[in-house]
């Protein structure tokens, strides 16, 4: 999994936002300076994310927003939202207990936190790369390559065009060219992970286990790639346990969970109320 040792961090990160026009800056209890610098410090773990008051950051940001009027600044503002969301995630991970690595959960938590750090770094990396692209495009836009009209004597020698289209063909071609290639939509997937219904997943689990052989949890989630579905299926298993519909056996710590259908009676109504705790 991603490990972000401070030593491995590139000097690029230290550049902070120097290359940019002064943007959003902060005056917090324990930090004062540009937002970019705050990010760098957190990424380098020189500032503990848990000690940063996100509500203070947000307050400052909102007052910063009020003073904005140009598109470029708005660009930077939307960028803040991206990073703020990541920071929030980081903070959640940071606030959770650390200590001895006792169980899988803790390991997963740490891994998740590293992933978030990685994500923050990745975000910064592409931002740095974008600056390089911007400079390159800018530099080259002033260059002039030789692009001149072909000399008359060569133009005359270009082969005669073979034209086979009728006016009708041509119109059909136009219709094709004008037809929207895709219906423009504003995707919202990035705002929320697709909702996964625990109830639906429970129904799947029931269908798989009921009246059949015991299955391991690994088998229950075989072939499922979406993390959300795996989690929902796990929660469904917990719910079914709570309803005493299934029992489980784990031979050794961290070993496979074997699930067996135990409910003497089970109706689809039982399913209907299951997972209600998770409904928002």
């Amino acid at each position, binding site marked *: 999994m991603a490990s972000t040792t401070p030593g491995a961090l590139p000097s690029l990160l230290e550049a902070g936002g120097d290359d940019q026009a002064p943007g959003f800056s902060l005056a917090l209890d324990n930090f004062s300076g540009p937002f970019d610098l705050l990010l760098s410090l957190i990424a380098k773990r020189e500032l503990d994310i848990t000690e940063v008051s996100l509500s203070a950051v947000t307050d400052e940001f909102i007052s910063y927003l009020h003073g904005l009027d140009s598109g470029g600044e708005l660009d930077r503002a939307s960028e803040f939202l991206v990073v703020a969301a990541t920071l929030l995630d980081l903070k959640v991970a940071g606030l959770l207990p650390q200590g001895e690595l006792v169980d899988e959960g803790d390991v997963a938590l740490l891994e998740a936190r590293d992933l978030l750090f990685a994500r923050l770094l990745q975000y910064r990396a592409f931002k740095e790369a974008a600056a390089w692209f911007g400079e390159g495009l800018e530099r080259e836009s002033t260059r*002039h*390559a*030789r*692009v*001149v*009209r*072909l*000399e008359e*004597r*060569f*133009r005359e*020698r*270009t*082969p*005669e*065009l*073979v*034209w086979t*289209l*009728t*006016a*009708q063909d*041509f*119109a059909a*071609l*136009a*219709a*094709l*060219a*004008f*037809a*929207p*290639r895709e219906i*423009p939509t504003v995707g919202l997937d990035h705002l929320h992970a697709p909702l996964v219904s625990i109830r639906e997943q429970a129904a799947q689990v029931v269908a798989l286990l009921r009246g059949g052989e015991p299955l391991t949890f690994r088998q229950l989630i075989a072939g499922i790639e979406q993390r959300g579905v795996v989690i929902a299926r796990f929660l469904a298993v917990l719910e079914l346990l709570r309803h005493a519909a299934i029992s489980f056996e784990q031979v050794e710590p961290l070993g496979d969970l074997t699930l067996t259908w135990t409910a003497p009676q089970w109706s689809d109504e039982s399913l209907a109320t299951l997972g209600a705790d998770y409904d928002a």
Partner: protein
Amino acid sequence: MPEVMSEQAEVEAPGEPATRPVVADIERALEAILMVADEPLPLVSLATAIGAPVPAVRQSIERLVADYDGEDGGPRRGFELREVGGGWRLYVRPEHDAVVADLVLTQNPTRLSQAALETLAVIAYKQPISRGSIASIRAVNVDSVVRTLVGRGLITEAFTDPETGAIHYETTGLLLTQLGINSLDELPPISPLLPDGADGFDDLR
């Protein structure tokens, strides 16, 4: 370019402003301009562009001609500087015509590509139209295709937007001839996709 310095005297009188380009500089600046000049450029335009007096530019042009012709001890270049229609432009030297003609042939197949045809259709139905607008309808970059169509004489520059500087293109009589119609009015209608779509497509940008 120390050896050039001695010849500076030919142009610059003593006491001339130091900012005025020296001979060698004029030649290099001329080379730069000629490299991108589409049309033959009159001496006066060249002189204005580089801010040098016309006689100096004339002299520099003459030296460049000799230079490219290999009369200065250098090679006889594959290109030459010629005066055509009152202006100067770089041309392929005739002995290389065959090689260049071959290349032009391979770069201009006898049939238009699908992309070129679709772009042509877009221009035909929405002319006059800028490259940017074509690109947003086609959702691809159309610079080289537009160049091909202009080269083929199927479209031509209609006007340049004075505000944006964007060149707007329109189709030519050659397209009508190829399609066997007499005027653009005879283009088959492509409603219902187009009528009210004209504005809508612009929004897609």
